[in-house]
C-alpha cells in the first residue's frame, strides 16, 4: 500500500486528501471526503451513478484514481445546487417525478448538466444518446428525458 497526498479543487474549494495510490476517485469522494452524493453502482464504468466532471468533462469517478485529481478541478453533485436553492435540472427532476429509488439521480443530473453546459438546445435523441451511460432501473427513462428537455427550455429562457 502506497499512501499519496493529493491537492485538488472540488466544487470550487481547495481540498487536500491522502489516499492509497490504487484508490478510485469515487472511494476518495465517498469514504474520505464524505461526499456521498456520487453513488457506486457497477464500479466498471457501465452505470454512470458515480458521474463527476474532471476539468469540466464528464467522467466516471470509478474509472479514475484519486491521485489523478492532483492539480485538476472536480465537480460533483454536491456542487450543483446553489446553497439551498436547487439547480433548474434538479427542480425539474422533482417536478416531473423523474426519480424513484434515486440511486441513479445524482449521476444523471451531473451528466445532464455537462450536456446542457456545452449544448443548451439538445434534441430528444441527443439527450438519450448522451445519457446512454447512465442506467436507471426504475423510471423507464421517459420522465428523465422530459425533465431535462424542460430544464433546457427554462435555462435557455424560451
Amino acid at each position, binding site marked *: 500500500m502506497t499512501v499519496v497526498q493529493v491537492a485538488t479543487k472540488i466544487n470550487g474549494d481547495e481540498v487536500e486528501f491522502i489516499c492509497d495510490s490504487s484508490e478510485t476517485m469515487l472511494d476518495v469522494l465517498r469514504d474520505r471526503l464524505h461526499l456521498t452524493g456520487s453513488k457506486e453502482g457497477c464500479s*466498471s464504468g457501465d452505470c454512470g451513478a458515480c458521474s463527476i466532471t474532471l476539468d469540466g468533462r464528464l467522467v466516471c469517478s470509478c474509472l479514475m484514481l484519486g491521485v489523478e485529481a492532483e492539480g485538476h478541478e472536480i465537480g460533483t453533485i454536491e456542487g450543483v445546487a446553489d446553497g439551498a436553492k436547487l439547480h433548474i435540472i434538479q427542480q425539474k427532476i422533482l417536478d416531473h417525478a423523474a426519480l424513484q429509488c434515486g440511486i441513479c439521480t445524482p449521476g444523471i443530473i451531473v451528466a445532464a448538466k455537462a450536456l446542457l453546459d456545452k449544448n443548451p438546445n439538445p434534441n430528444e435523441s441527443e439527450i438519450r444518446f448522451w445519457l446512454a451511460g447512465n442506467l436507471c432501473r426504475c423510471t423507464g427513462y421517459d420522465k428523465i428525458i422530459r425533465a431535462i428537455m424542460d430544464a433546457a427550455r427554462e435555462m435557455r429562457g424560451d
Partner: protein
Amino acid sequence: MRYEAPVTVNELANLLSSNDGIVKILAGGTDILVQMRSGAIEPDLLVDIKGIDAMNIITKNKDGYQIGASVSCAALNENVELKQDYAGVCEGAGLIGSAQVQGRATMVGNLCNASPAADSVPCLVAVGATVTVVGNDGATRQTAVENIPQSPGLTSLGKHEFISSINLPKKPINTGDAYLRFIPRSEMDIAVVGCAVCITLDDEGVCTDAKLFLGAVAEKIIIVKDAVKAMVGTMLDDEVVDNLEKSASKACSPINDKRGTIEFRTKVAGVLAKRAAIIAYKRAMNKMKQ
C-alpha cells in the same frame, strides 16, 4: 502499487526501463482500472502519462496529424478540422463507450488493449495510420498501426516500449473514410462486426485506391483483398457493391457466441462492408467537389 506521473517522455522511458516488476501505463484508464479492480492485473508500478504535455495534444503538420497517446476520444471529436479530414477515424473512436468513457478513453489505449473488436482500430489501419513507439533508451521508431495487435490482449510492444502518438498521414486528395459497426443495442456495447473503408478517387470519380478492413470477425482485424480489387477502377456501381458484400462475408472467420452467431456475423460483415463503402465513396466525392 507505486504511482508515478512523469512530465517528460524521457522520464517516462527511464521509469519503464528501470523497473522490472509489472509496469503498466495509465492514460484514460477505462480498461486498466477495470482490470485492476477485477484482480486481472496487479501492477507494481502504474505510470500516468497525462502529465506529459505532448501526450495531450493534436498537432497538424506537413505530414498530417500527430495525436498524443492520452488525447481522449471526446477531445478528438471536438477537433473540427480533424473530423472533416478523417470522418471515419473520428466516428470509430466516438463509438467507444458512453459520454463518460469518451471523456477519458484514448485510441492508443484501444489499440494496446488489442481486442479484435476495437472500434477505433479498423479505420486507423484503413487510412494508413502509424504509431510512434518509444524504446527504453528514449529512441523512437514508427510502425504501422496493424503491426501492434498480435492476438486478443497481446501486442507486439517490447517490455519497456510505449506508444507516444498515433500519426495520420496527410490525406490524399479526393479521399473519404468511414466506419460502421453492429451492436445488438443502440449504445454501450462491443462490436459484433465492425467495418472500415477508405476510398481515393481520381478527378472523374473513379476509384484509384481502396482499403476495406473488418473487425471482430477474426483473431485480428482483417483486410478484404478481393473487395479492394473489386472497387479499384470502378465508380462503385450496384454490381461492384454487391460483389463487395460477398467478398467481405467470404473473408470472415468469426467466433460463435450469444452476441452473434458465425452465420449472423458473416452476413452482417457483408452488409456493413457495402454500407461503409457507399459512405466512404460519397465522402470522397464530396471532397472532390470542394
